[in-house]
């Protein structure tokens, strides 16, 4: 990594791990929103990974989120597994659900996007109907919270924040590693020239499938975290389309071609939605999200944050010239 980006990364991590808890830790309301924003950011990250590396747009990430949530919740409630182990299992469960979806990879863009959506619907219906396993539409209650580790109560808002932050950092790191590896280079080429890669020995189907599994694992992880964070789960919540819409808006807003873009986008979009839009238009405040999404696709498909970055750079550059 270049020294300049290394410094900014360390700075960002310091700010996130130290500054935020110190400054905002006492404000439970804001902290809970930051945690929610990071959960969405995590799903947005996994969505963007699938889009960027796998070249596939999905409208069904709620499927992975929900499966991860249920697997983790049920293994702690019914089998008594420790929470962190269950969360990992949640990710694994989501990955397995993605294995069922592998045949869908052969399909082109829109068909893939909607086929995944169909899976999400199916999972929701299964979760609702298989009541002996999942508690049906009533859901699962009293899901164990995050434990206390080294004297730090992770169930508190600040504690949960640290956990979800760590999850985001780990996923971002993994994403970055894959992207800069040889697999990442091949994946980049596969978007527009898949045959060209296959003719030189790239098993493109395997790589795409791997990206789907990785993306599913990540989304499942955050779903699992969410289950232990709010301690309650039901099908309509776990597989809600909000887990589709918000991450997509967040990822596109923040710039889905970058790694941190989706996360930053999630923080901004979610906080603005909850703090401003919700108070302006209590029912149907998501209308603004829709407008945002439409505006971005038309005017700045690469995201608004990158656009802001460009403007900032230009403005600063102009100042330097004058000085």
């Amino acid at each position: 990594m270049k020294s300049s980006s290394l410094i900014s990364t360390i700075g960002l991590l310091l700010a996130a791990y130290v500054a935020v808890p110190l400054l905002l830790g006492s404000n439970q309301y804001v902290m809970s929103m930051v945690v929610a924003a990071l959960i969405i950011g995590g799903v947005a990250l996994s969505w963007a990974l699938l889009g960027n590396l796998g070249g596939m747009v999905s409208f069904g990430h709620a499927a992975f989120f929900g499966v991860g949530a249920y697997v983790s919740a049920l293994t702690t409630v019914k089998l008594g597994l420790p929470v962190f182990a269950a969360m990992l299992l949640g990710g694994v469960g989501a990955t397995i659900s993605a294995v069922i979806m592998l045949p869908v990879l052969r399909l082109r863009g829109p068909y893939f996007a909607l086929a995944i959506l169909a899976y999400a619907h199916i999972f929701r219906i299964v979760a609702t109907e298989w009541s002996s396993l999942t508690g049906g539409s009533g859901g699962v209650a009293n899901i164990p919270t995050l434990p206390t580790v080294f004297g730090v109560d992770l169930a508190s808002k600040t504690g949960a924040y640290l956990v979800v932050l760590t999850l985001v950092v780990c996923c971002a790191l993994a994403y970055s590693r894959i992207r800069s590896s040889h697999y990442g280079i091949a994946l980049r080429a596969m978007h527009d020239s898949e045959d060209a890669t296959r003719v030189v020995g790239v098993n493109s189907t395997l790589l795409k499938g791997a990206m789907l599994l990785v993306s599913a694992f990540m989304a499942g992880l955050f779903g699992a975290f969410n289950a232990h964070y709010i301690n309650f789960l039901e099908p309509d919540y776990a597989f809600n389309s909000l887990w589709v819409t918000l991450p997509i808006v967040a990822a596109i807003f923040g710039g889905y071609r970058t790694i941190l873009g989706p996360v930053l986008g999630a923080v901004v979009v979610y906080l603005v939605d909850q703090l401003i839009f919700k108070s302006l238009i209590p029912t149907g405040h998501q209308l603004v999200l829709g407008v945002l999404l439409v505006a971005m696709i038309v005017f700045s498909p690469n995201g608004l944050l990158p656009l802001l970055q460009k403007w900032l750079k230009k403005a600063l550059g102009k100042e330097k010239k004058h000085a």
Partner: protein
Amino acid sequence: MLELDNVSVRFGGLTAVDSVTLSIASNDVIGLVGSNGAGKTTLFNAISGLVRPTSGAIRFEGRDVMATPMYQRARLGIGRTFQIPQPMHELTVRENLIVAQRFGTGKVDHQKIDEILDFTSLTAKANRDAASELALTELKALEVAKALATDPKLLLLDEVLAGLETTGKRRFMGMLKDLHAKFGVGIVMIEHDIETISNLCPRVAVLNFGQLIADGTPDAVFRDPAVIKSYTGAADA
């Protein structure tokens, strides 16, 4: 090294390749000619795994590769260029070769990549975007370079000279001449120009309407009445 045994490729009612039986040894340099639509590219597609023959058998180094997927055949040693160059998008020239080498052979050898870049005269453009910053000659050179990076045993060249003007063509021909000597790879090349073929290839195979109608030295093949007829369409040669 490569055995085609009665291979036929049918698309619906159209027979593109008709019962072709051909044997290619590891030190062969074979020219594949025939008028447009004779089935040459389809034959290449069948060998490299892009299409599946409707009947017949294809054996590479003794093993049956009919069911082997395209990416696997590349790893086994069948390299191929496309008539219309297909560079890997969003990658530089060097990255194209890195991917080809990494996935075609299992590891990356930067020295070898530099050699190939040098051989195909692409060193100057190594860090340029492959899909948007190369001239036609360079794109075609990249096709060959990519295939070479996979360390092939058999190289299928599909009309690499097509569309090139005189100087480019001459440079390419020089490169093709050295290809077999320098990399020890068996070559089958599709070209239209009879003079070029006679110059480069000690053996020529002729396809006409999907059928193999001649297989021998350039001299013998181009004097063959059946071959002449297929080119001129004359009722009697």
